[in-house]
């Protein structure tokens, strides 16, 4: 009887299978640098594999996108008037091609000029992204990810000063490495049900203020033992492990806070999510 049920279930699943044609195209787009005025770069990538790195040549941008023309539209546009660069792939319909195999998924390799100051914003859907942000001249960074698996690295110092890094994590897994090299002074993080990991490795040049709002997701913050940490916690069910901290009037201080050359100040708003601090001196 069980075998019969299995067979019937197999029949159901197999009968629902439909064949779908795909039209794979590759567009290679670039633009020469004519001046080094600041730009705003938007990368909006719905699904596939994304690689981002500094450009090696003299191009303002160079992007190679492999996409399914039946389902998606590539976007490569630079508005000279507003100095806005738009790159990415837009979904035309919700029917996505299977991404289980490497050959079946779209991909985008984007290279951005490292001499041009830019506000960079990334809006990523179901994307596997490897972002080499070190070496760029970033003045502002915004990363919004739905169900992405993102690794962003600052393995080289940022050429400019990053005013704000805004991170919105839905159900994604986002990992930022060597963030101290970004020269950032303010990080705003909102985590829904995903996980966000911020590694403040590299060379920290200034104090960093982090405002983290956690719904049910988690934040892992890795700091250097030389840095003093302050946490202002407002949590409901979540929170953070307070071992190694001393409670004062306005929050929790690490033991080396007063002696540390640079400080990391965390303003934590956690509903059911939790923050984990690693690497700090206890």
């Amino acid at each position, binding site marked *: 009887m069980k075998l019969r049920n299995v*067979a*019937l279930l197999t*029949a159901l699943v197999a*009968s629902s299978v439909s064949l779908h044609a795909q039209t794979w195209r590759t567009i290679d*787009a670039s633009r*020469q640098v004519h001046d080094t005025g600041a730009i705003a770069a938007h990368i909006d990538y719905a699904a596939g594999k994304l690689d981002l790195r500094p450009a090696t040549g003299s191009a303002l941008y160079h992007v190679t996108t492999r996409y399914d*023309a039946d389902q998606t*539209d590539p*976007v490569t546009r630079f508005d000279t008037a507003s100095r806005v660069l738009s790159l990415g792939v837009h979904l035309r319909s919700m029917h996505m091609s299977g991404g289980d195999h490497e050959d079946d998924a779209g991909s985008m390799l984007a290279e951005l000029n490292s001499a041009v100051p830019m506000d960079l914003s990334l809006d990523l859907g179901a994307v596997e992204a490897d972002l080499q942000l070190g070496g760029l001249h970033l003045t502002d960074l915004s990363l919004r990810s739905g169900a992405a698996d993102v690794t962003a690295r600052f393995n080289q110092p940022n050429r400019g000063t990053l005013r704000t890094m805004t991170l919105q994590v839905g159900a994604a897994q986002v990992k930022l490495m060597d963030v101290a090299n970004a020269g950032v002074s303010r990080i705003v993080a909102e985590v829904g049900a995903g996980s966000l990991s911020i590694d403040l490795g590299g060379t920290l040049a200034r104090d960093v203020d982090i405002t983290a709002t956690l719904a049910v997701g988690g934040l892992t913050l890795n700091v250097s033992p030389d840095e003093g940490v302050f946490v202002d916690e407002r949590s409901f069910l979540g929170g953070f492990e307070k071992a190694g901290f001393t409670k004062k009037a306005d929050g929790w201080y690490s033991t080396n806070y007063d002696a540390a050359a640079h400080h990391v100040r965390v303003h934590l708003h956690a509903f059911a999510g939790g923050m984990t601090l690693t690497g700090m001196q206890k």
Partner: protein
Amino acid sequence: MRILHARAAMFNMVGMALIAAVGIVSRATSLAAQQSPARITVDSLAKALAGLHESSDSASIPAASSFAFGDSTIAAGRHTAGPVAIADGALHVRGTIDGDAVTYNGDIVVHQGGAIHGNAFAVLGKVILDGGVVSGDTRSLTGDLRRVGTGIGAAGQSRASITAHSLALSAGWLAVLVVVGIGVLIFASTNLDAVSDAIERGFGKAFLAGIATQLALAPALALLCVGLALTILGALLIPFAIVAYILAAAGLVTLGYLAIARIAGRSVLGDSDSSDGARRAAALRSMVYGLLLLMLPWFVAGGLTWSPTLELIARMVAVSITWVAATAGLGAAVVSRGGVRRATTPHAQASLNTASWATPTPVAGVTAARRPTPYTTGAPK
């Protein structure tokens, strides 16, 4: 030995079906590949450009009538107003283009001293900056584009690819149905028998039951959801119930369709009253033949892409046959409760009405038989 023969026949049948499917697809594909692109004409270029989606990237491509054909050079020191559009050849820019440059099936080469004051877009080609300047964006588009040749060739190739796709789709569905049918024959043959019986007893009744079921599917689902929503636990189960309901409906349709296919095949091949193994082989053979028969209109429609009118008629016939088969099959599956309730034929009912059920001994009596006793010659001990 007979079982071995039956199994061999089963494998042969499945193998033949799959080989036929693969053969059809590969034949159609090779036909498409044999259409080698020739020189591009304005008409074929227009068709090719129309094949490009009107995305922001391809919006700047001028009309086919604006294209010049063959290699072209903008000489050094010369200023030309854009857009400059070249098909089936390379565009060498040594002077200046005030506007966009577009090529189809050719490269754009911007040499030293050359300049394009606009965008450079090479479809099925590359933009090569050989010391020149492009003030706008450079784009090159490659990949699965509709290649163009001469007028007849272009249309023929396009039709060939459409035909190949249609036939491949039909072959794919046939292969899926054969695989599903084998699974059902192996694991749920009694259910299939019961559904087949229900169809054979009364096709009209099954068809009407199928229509009634189709009409009742949505209201029944709505009622189910409303009923579940009355309790908190039930409300939580609504998404699962919807999925299960859809799966159950699809399963009934599939079971019924396979039963129809088997009956159709049996009507062609006839019955087999041999051993169990041979019966199974015959059942599989019937099903495969039946599926081929039911899918035949789809193959015919796929092969008629050269004539839109005939293709439309063939597709309408195919849809009608498929719908009737699926509806009758669904109705039979519902009547037989998914093949769980076995048919009670009038003959069987009549035999049940006799008094024969009342006693294990037939009322006509049993012929007496002498009890066999061992024959001994020796004296009893």
